[in-house]
C-alpha cells in the first residue's frame, strides 16, 4: 500500500510546489527568468551587497525557500526531493543576486550538494563572480565537526550570513561571521516514524511501532542509537547531553534555541520538549536569548524533532536580532 500524500504526479511534485509557493508569496519571491528552479528575493539583492545563495534538496520546507527575503538569503536553488540542485540553477541564482561584492554559497554539508555547488562556483568564477562557500555542519550525530551534516542549524548560519550581508559587510567579513556562526551551532535529531518520497510512496526506513532513533538525519539516514520510545524529558536529556558534550557551554553564556519538527510532530510536543530544554539551560546557568519552536527544517512528513543550540557573542547576537522579512519567516 502506498503512503498517503496530497499530490498529483510524484515527478512533478517539486515544480508544482514551486508554482504554489510563487503564487502565495509574490511580495517576497520571484523566479529567475528562464531558470524555473532559481528563486530570488524581490527585495534584497542590491549593488554593493554580498549576495547570499542557499539551496539544497526539496522536502525540507520551509528550508531553504522560506528563508529567502530581505535580510536573509537573496537566492535559492531548488533541487529535487532530497537531491542537491544541479549547477545551472545555482549559477543562475549567483548571477541574479550578484551586486558586485561577491556571492556566498551556504548549504548543508552533503556530498551531492558540495559537488553541484562547487561546479556552479567554478562556472561563476568564469563569469567573474567571486564565490565563497560556507557549509553548515551542525549535526553532532557525527563526531568530526568538519564531516557533520547540515540540518536545522542552517537557520542560524543563514540568519547570520543574511544579516551580515544586509549590513553591507564585505565578502571576507560575511564569510568570517558565517564560519563563526556555524562553529557555534549544534543540533541533534530524533525520529519516530519515516517519511516517504513522492515518487516511491514507500516508507524510507523502518522503525518498530515502539521505537525511536536518536541522531537520524533529515533524509532518514541512520542515526546513532535506536531504542524504545522514551518520555519527552528523557529524550530531550539524551539529545541535550550529546549537544553539551560537543558544545561545552559555560555558565553565563548566551544561547538561542530552535526546537524543530521533522514534519508531523505537532507544536504541542515541541513545546513540551522546549520546556525541558529550557530547564536544562537554566540548570547550567546559560542565558536563553531567543527561542524558535515549529517547522523550520523538515523531512517531508517524518515524525520526530531536532534541537539546535546556537551560542552567541555580541556579534552573533547582533546578526540574530537584525530584522529580516522572508516568504515563510520574519524576525527582528
Amino acid at each position, binding site marked *: 500500500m502506498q503512503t498517503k500524500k496530497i499530490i498529483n504526479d510524484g515527478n512533478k511534485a517539486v515544480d508544482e510546489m514551486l508554482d504554489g509557493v510563487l503564487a502565495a508569496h509574490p511580495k517576497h519571491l520571484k523566479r529567475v527568468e528562464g531558470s524555473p528552479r532559481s528563486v530570488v528575493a524581490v527585495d534584497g539583492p542590491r549593488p554593493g551587497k554580498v549576495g547570499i545563495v542557499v539551496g539544497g534538496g526539496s522536502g525540507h520546507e520551509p528550508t531553504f525557500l522560506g528563508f529567502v527575503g530581505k535580510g536573509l538569503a537573496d537566492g535559492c536553488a531548488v533541487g529535487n526531493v532530497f537531491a*542537491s540542485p544541479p549547477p545551472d540553477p545555482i549559477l543562475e541564482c549567483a548571477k541574479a543576486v550578484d551586486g558586485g561584492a561577491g556571492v556566498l554559497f551556504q548549504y548543508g554539508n552533503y556530498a551531492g550538494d558540495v559537488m553541484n555547488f562547487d561546479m556552479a562556483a567554478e562556472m561563476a568564477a568564469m563569469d567573474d563572480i567571486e564565490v565563497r562557500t560556507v557549509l553548515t555542519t551542525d549535526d553532532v550525530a557525527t563526531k568530526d565537526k568538519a564531516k557533520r551534516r547540515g540540518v536545522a542549524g542552517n537557520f542560524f548560519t543563514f540568519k547570520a550570513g543574511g544579516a551580515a550581508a544586509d549590513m553591507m559587510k564585505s565578502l571576507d567579513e560575511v564569510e568570517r561571521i558565517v564560519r563563526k556562526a556555524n562553529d557555534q551551532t549544534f543540533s541533534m535529531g530524533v525520529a519516530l516514524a519515516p517519511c516517504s518520497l513522492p515518487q516511491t510512496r514507500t516508507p524510507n526506513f523502518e522503525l518498530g511501532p515502539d521505537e525511536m532513533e536518536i541522531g537520524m*538525519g533529515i533524509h532518514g539516514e*541512520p542515526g546513532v542509537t535506536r531504542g524504545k520510545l522514551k518520555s519527552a524529558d528523557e529524550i530531550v536529556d539524551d539529545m541535550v547531553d550529546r549537544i553539551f558534550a560537543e558544545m561545552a557551554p559555560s555558565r553565563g553564556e548566551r544561547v538561542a534555541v530552535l526546537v524543530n519538527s521533522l514534519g508531523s510532530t505537532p507544536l504541542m510536543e515541541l513545546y513540551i520538549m522546549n520546556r525541558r530544554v529550557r530547564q536544562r539551560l537554566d540548570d547550567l546557568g546559560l542565558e536563553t536569548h531567543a527561542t524558535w519552536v515549529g517547522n523550520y527544517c523538515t523531512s517531508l512528513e517524518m515524525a520526530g524533532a531536532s534541537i539546535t543550540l546556537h551560542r552567541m557573542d555580541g556579534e552573533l547576537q547582533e546578526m540574530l536580532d537584525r530584522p529580516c522579512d522572508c516568504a515563510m519567516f520574519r524576525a527582528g
Partner: protein
Amino acid sequence: MIDAARLKAMVGHIADTIEREKDRLCALDGVIGDADHGIAMSLGFGAARDAVEGLDETADPTMVLNTAAKSFLNAVGASSGPLYATALMRGAASIKGKAELATEDVVAMLQAMAKGIQDRGKAELGEKTMIDAWLPAASAAGEAISQGLARALSAASEAAHAGAEATKNMVASKGRAERLGERSLGHMDPGAASAAMVIEAMRKSLTD
C-alpha cells in the same frame, strides 16, 4: 560498428535497465542513505535518453555523450548528477573527433568515465561508493582488451558486479553513508549496484 546511433541506443538501453531496477535501487539507498538513488538514476538516464533521441543525424559520438551528460546533470543534481555527468563528459572527450569507435576507443571511453567519477568525487577504492564498481570494471576491460570488445566488456561487467557485491563488506567513508561507520556494513552501496547495471547495459547494447 559503434557509431553515434549505437551510442544513442546504448543510452536508451541504460535508461530502460535502470527504470526496471529503480525500486530496488531506492530500497538499497533507503537502508544506508536517503532512498532516492533509483529516482535520481532513472530521471538522469531518462532525460539523457530523451535528449540524445532529439539529436539529428549530424551528431557525432562525442556530441551524443556530451548531450547525455548535460541533460543528466540538469535533470538530477544530487550526487549521481555531477558524477555521471563528469563520467559522460570525460567519455565524450576521450573519443573526440571519432565517428566510429574501435575496441580500444570503447575501452578508453570506459576508463575515462571511471576516471571522471573519481576526479569529481575524490573517492578511493574501498570507500563503499560507485567507484568500487567503476574502477575494477575499467581495469578489467583494459586487461582483456586484446581479446576483443565482447570479452573486454564482459570482463568489465563481471568486475563491476563483483565490486558492487564487495561493497557489502565495506565501511562507508564517502557520500551520505559516511557517517554510519560500522552500521553501513552488510549493505550493498546503491551507487555501486547501479554502476554494475549501467556497465552491463553498456556491454549488452554495444556487443549483442
